[in-house]
């Protein structure tokens, strides 16, 4: 039953993902009564049901363990039939077939283009941390000062030194494994005597193979000519010691979509802690449908619609009231909610939107994927999905004219680019060549099969380049005027493109990938996308034939950023540096939506640091 046990909460939080959970816990510890509205299903006693769904899935995509089910009766579930839908990477295909990106009967997001927004999220307890990788990097100092340093975009209203202690607090709160002496590059500093809560995760053999090539790596151009190339172990919210009563990583190589032993942090850990304070409660399967504003411009409540089954009718419509409200729905669902909130015509442009910027500046880390075959076995498909990266190229003068990137070294062979080992195995058994490894299209069996398959799989590896996307106000989240979910709420409509700045970052990434493979003596197998791939674009590169463009594919890194940006002024931003709405004193919009720029680090640690800072602000400035 949804009857809330916390009557008259001090704070209502929409969303139980990491931002909502971290704030709920801090407020609960401070004695505030908190009520969370969560669109998705309840925290289960074990992850049995998630794991079972994952194991039975033929398409083991990031969303596969969680609800809503991706398939219904053999077809992709129609988003109009589910109460708390979300996008899937299965709907990024060309129009006209399975997974068509602009078919509203398959795709949850109404994508207006010109390019497809490629990242996805979950609407379930603990939010998208259910399927995240766990990478927990700090931003580098210059990331906060793009305008000052590189005359690009905007500066953040706070800088690295303001956030530094909060990064440390976040690292201890979620449990990040790293060695501080390896993490102080590009100006990153730590408080004196700081140490991460757990030692770093051991590097993989793939990392070592890439590392050997660093001394001879040369990239001619893109501002990378003088980089002192080096690999860096990646700080991760993944246990390298028993921590928070969770087990140590056993290298299941499955962080995305689910860690079978919960060695990877997800926000259910924080939710459980929040509940134990006795001051936090949650209403599950309750979709926030309107932020209610009173005549004085204060938030007066959150309307919700509750459902029992994911495709069943609504069972309750109600409103929760508190003194303070926090929206933590992610950078697509939060603007959706705000824009939906018309308050009977009194807020026709939505709530918190007097500057007209809610939903604007949508960003991702579009990801360039390159893959190759090492000359010797490199032993992929082992360990966490990634244990190291190349971070040293994340900052530099080149940011004046192109997007920077970080390089994620993948431990999972060619699983990400081509769905291996399935593809190569089917190739070798059925005489096909989708992988590129079976040029003669031989159909093998017996020891010929084991030898060929072992030879191929053991040498596979891939690199992922997270490119900094420029903030553009034309990249936006609005509301579809035609398509709704099963509760009758308008689905998010996306306009999305990559700027020249971002595309030039891809050109640099492509050149760097090839240079790394060359330095490793590895044979590159990166194949160009089809011309009708909605997650691809054409661009010129130095190495390509002069005057000719090449087609480059991008993936989504799973990062939704920018749509309620923070700033110095109510005219140029949606929230202030505490993530408080300029327009409503008792409203906070938290999460990566608050980022004015996306930089190059995976955003979750910064989300966590900002969330803890916001919670602290609330505790200090809003007495109970």
């Amino acid at each position, binding site marked *: 039953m949804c009857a809330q046990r916390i009557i008259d909460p001090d704070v209502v939080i929409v969303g139980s993902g990491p931002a909502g959970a971290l704030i709920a816990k801090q407020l609960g510890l401070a004695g505030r009564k908190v009520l969370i509205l969560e669109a998705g299903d309840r925290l289960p*006693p*074990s992850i049995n049901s998630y794991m079972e769904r994952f*194991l039975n899935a033929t398409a083991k995509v990031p969303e596969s363990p969680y609800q809503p089910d991706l398939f219904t009766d053999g077809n992709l579930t129609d988003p109009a039939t589910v109460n708390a839908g979300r996008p899937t990477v299965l709907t990024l295909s060309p129009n006209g077939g399975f997974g068509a990106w602009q078919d509203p009967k398959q795709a949850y997001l109404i994508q207006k283009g010109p390019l497809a927004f490629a990242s996805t999220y979950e609407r379930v307890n603990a939010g998208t941390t259910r399927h995240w990788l766990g990478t927990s990097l700090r931003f580098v100092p210059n990331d906060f000062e793009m305008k000052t340093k590189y005359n690009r975009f905007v500066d953040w209203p706070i800088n690295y030194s303001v956030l530094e202690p909060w990064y440390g607090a976040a690292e201890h709160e979620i449990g990040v494994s790293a060695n501080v002496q390896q993490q102080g590059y590009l100006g990153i500093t730590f408080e004196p005597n700081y140490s991460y809560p757990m030692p770093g995760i051991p590097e993989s053999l793939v990392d070592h193979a890439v590392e050997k090539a660093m001394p001879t790596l040369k990239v001619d151009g893109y501002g990378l000519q003088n980089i002192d190339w080096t690999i860096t172990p990646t700080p991760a919210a993944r246990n390298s*010691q028993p921590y928070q009563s969770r087990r140590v990583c056993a290298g299941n190589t499955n962080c995305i979509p689910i860690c079978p*032993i919960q060695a990877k942090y997800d926000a259910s850990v924080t939710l*459980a802690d929040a509940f134990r*304070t006795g001051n936090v409660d949650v209403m599950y399967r309750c979709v926030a449908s309107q932020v209610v504003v009173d005549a004085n411009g204060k938030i007066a409540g959150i309307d919700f619609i509750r459902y029992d089954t994911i495709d069943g009718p609504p069972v309750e419509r109600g409103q929760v009231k508190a003194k303070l409200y926090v929206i933590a729905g992610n950078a697509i669902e939060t603007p959706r909610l705000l824009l939906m909130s018309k308050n009977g015509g009194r807020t026709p442009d939505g709530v918190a939107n007097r500057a007209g910027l809610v939903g604007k500046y949508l960003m991702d880390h579009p990801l360039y994927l390159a893959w190759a075959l090492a000359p010797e076995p490199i032993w992929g498909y082992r360990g966490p999905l990634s244990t190291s990266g190349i971070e040293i190229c994340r900052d530099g003068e080149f940011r004046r004219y192109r997007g920077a990137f970080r390089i994620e070294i993948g431990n999972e062979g060619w699983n990400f680019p081509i769905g291996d080992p399935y593809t190569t195995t089917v190739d070798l058994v059925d005489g096909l060549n989708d992988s590129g490894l079976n040029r003669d299209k031989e159909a093998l069996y017996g020891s010929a099969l084991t030898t060929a398959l072992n030879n191929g799989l053991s040498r596979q590896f891939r690199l992922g380049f997270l490119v900094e996307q420029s903030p553009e106000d034309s990249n936006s989240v609005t509301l579809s005027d035609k398509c709704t979910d099963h509760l009758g709420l308008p689905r998010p409509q996306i306009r999305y493109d990559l700027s020249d700045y971002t595309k030039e970052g891809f050109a640099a990434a492509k050149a760097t990938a090839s240079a790394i493979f060359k330095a490793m003596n590895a044979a590159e197998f990166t194949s160009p996308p089809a011309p009708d791939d909605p997650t691809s674009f054409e661009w010129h590169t130095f190495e390509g034939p002069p005057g000719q463009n090449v087609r480059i594919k991008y993936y989504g890194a799973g990062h939704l950023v920018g749509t309620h940006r923070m700033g110095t002024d109510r005219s140029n931003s949606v929230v202030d540096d505490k993530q408080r709405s300029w327009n409503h004193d008792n409203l906070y919009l938290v999460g990566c939506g608050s980022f004015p720029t996306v930089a190059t680090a995976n955003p979750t640690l910064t989300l966590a640091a900002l969330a803890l800072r916001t919670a602290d602000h609330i505790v200090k400035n809003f007495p109970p």
Partner: protein
Amino acid sequence: MRANRSLAIGVATVCSVIGLFGLSASAQTSSGPAPINPPVAKCNMTPDTNPQNPKEPYPITDKLLTSGQPCEPVVSIEGLLPNDPLGNLQRGFDFYSWLTFIALNSPADGKTIGHGSGPGGDAPTEWESLKNYRPLADVMLPGGAKPSWGTRIVPDACKRLDGPGKVILQVTEEAWNQPFKTGPLIDQDGNYALFDILMNEPMFDFILDNGLYSKQGQQKFNEQVDFPEGVNPDDKKQPPSPGLMGAIMLKTSWRVIDPGKDKDLAARFHTADTLIYFPGPPYTKAGPTCIEKTLGLVGFHVGHKTKDSPQWVWSTFEQVDNVPDDANVAADRLSPHYNFFNAACWNCPRNQTPPQPWDPPATLHFPTDFRSQVVRVNSLPPEVIDEVADLNRQFRAILKGTVWENYELITTQWPTDAKSRVDPTGAPAPTYLANTTLETYSQGSVPLASSSCMACHGNATTQHDPATASDFTFILEKAR
């Protein structure tokens, strides 16, 4: 001279010095450290089938009640079932589990099991004597202090309640919250179930001698953690090798027995007059305080490291009134009373955790009217269920009239390929195993997510940097 280690019932032997074969030279001098895994006077080597004819079962008579503790299982691919090596081996392990249960739960004063002076012949057990086993809280001490064997630690808050025969149970997170903080278990009277962990002397001595009782000590230990192994004596060797017990660890679960309300129930449980100590924040929300309760044993896990099962042998028992299984519930074949299930509540959601917050008050009574509604989720192959039911029937028969007839084996998990170079868990059989009182919320047959002793314990590590495998026990991660 070390205290008596033998668990042979009724035989108060002193461990003779013959057994220094195969041990380091330093152990042979009187000034060196005593051996961690000394020879035992007697290993119970009773097989589950007739030694002369493996197709016949070994008779299960009350002679077995005094046959002693096995040092390792005695099993064979030959047995009662034709063409079924797995089934025959399983029965051998399950038979071993019953012998172990009987030996461990025999009275500490040497009487035969079921011949104690309590109701139903109950008596304090071998494992409840500090001469034989030690609770985790008395090994992993505050500040990583050095523990000592056999000493009885009475927290200050418990001193006024203390008396002869009382057991001390220290409440840590693990004493009421199931592994990985999956949640507490609330019985039908509304009381928290309590859990405890104990180890035998060889296991303790390995920890003591290698300094593993503190974080600092673990950091200094750069070798592989390798607890001592149980092995039967071998007279054929030259010179003959003695029997060794090896490391044994226990996990127990308890429910509160109200002496008034549950008066008629008491004779169905092994009970212990227990002083329950809440250390207070940051370890427990309640406390510091100490309360006294009569606790009834509802679950009993044994882990035994043996030479042929370096992944350990895992046995688990439950009190027979705990829960119905899912087949019985579906067929509406229910008893009137269970410890953790209410037959009258037809729409109570099953196997769900209680509402938060979970921290127990010092009364151990759950603050709302929530009661755990637990059903056994069956994940064992039907052949195993049938074989175990048959053994249970016979062993319970020889324990008839005692409290111990109210306990049953669930089954035993053991490595089928202990020497595997590609599977450190040794391909366990059966694949999944859960005790409804100890792994309530992770029952099932979903790989890695559902309870399997070896799959889960295989992930246990030390607090060394970098983390090293701790030989299938989470005990080392509790060191401070």
